[in-house]
């Protein structure tokens, strides 16, 4: 299964790719903003997306809405500094499947990824 990591920080993408490796996912694509994520998700090759919130061009939350509006059903996990309950609710309503708040331990990401994939039967 291939995952897409979406974050405007190349450093954060690198950290998340390492964390996905801990979850056994080694095939990973990258996108630096929400718009690029929507385009990449449309290709149908990704079975999981890790999505930042605050990014240039298109926010992660808007990318989630666009991906769901396009009929894409792959699990999406928000990985963001936006820790307020309202943000979590907004993301889940928009179609995100899980939520990770930065800062995190890489093993937390691995656990949440496995938990999310198990929930959707992957």
């Amino acid at each position, binding site marked *: 299964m291939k995952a897409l990591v979406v974050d405007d920080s190349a450093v954060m993408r*690198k*950290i998340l790719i390492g964390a996905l490796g801990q979850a056994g996912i080694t095939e990973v694509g990258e996108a630096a903003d929400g718009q690029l994520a929507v385009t990449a998700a449309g290709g149908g090759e990704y079975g999981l997306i890790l999505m930042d919130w*605050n990014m*240039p061009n298109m926010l992660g939350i808007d990318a989630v809405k666009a991906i769901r509006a396009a009929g894409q059903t792959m699990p999406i996990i928000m990985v963001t*500094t936006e*820790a307020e309950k*309202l943000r979590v609710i907004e993301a889940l309503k928009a179609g995100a499947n899980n939520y990770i708040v*930065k*800062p*995190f331990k890489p093993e937390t990401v691995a656990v949440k990824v496995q938990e999310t994939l198990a929930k959707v039967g992957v």
Partner: protein
Amino acid sequence: MNVAYINPFIESVNDLFTTMLGCSAERGKVGLVKPGEPSGDLTALIGLSGPVRGTVALSFPDTTARAMVGRMTGLPEADVAESLGDGLAELVNIVAGGAKAKLNSGDGAVTDLSLPTVVRGQQYAVEGLTQTTWLDVPFASELGTFTLRVTFEQTEAKKEPVGAAAGEGRTS
């Protein structure tokens, strides 16, 4: 600004260290930034807007900046240079994000974060909100020393200061 308002930012620095940097940071005394006071070699800044408006800065000597980004990414120090600005931007993003969640807890409106900026050099000036002061908190860790600087105001008088660890009184 009540100096106790800086507590969420201090807690956020501690959260960052214990989760992503694998060590702890000891804070020094909260003080005021004096006009013209030099910063570290590298400073990462991010803006807050909404119910809380202001700016958060993390200022580092070059050695600390490299050590922190190296620890966070797992890159050897020799390879950190090209990721330095990006890594420092992410550090201030995480600190500000964690703090704003604590400042916002329990009510409706949510504070927004700007995209972070990294400044290299010790002499710069940030023109911020009028009649606000910058609070300065020095930290020491096994990765080196650095400084947290914060200035902000709350546009709705709805929150009491969070915690009391830095509650040395009012500055204005």
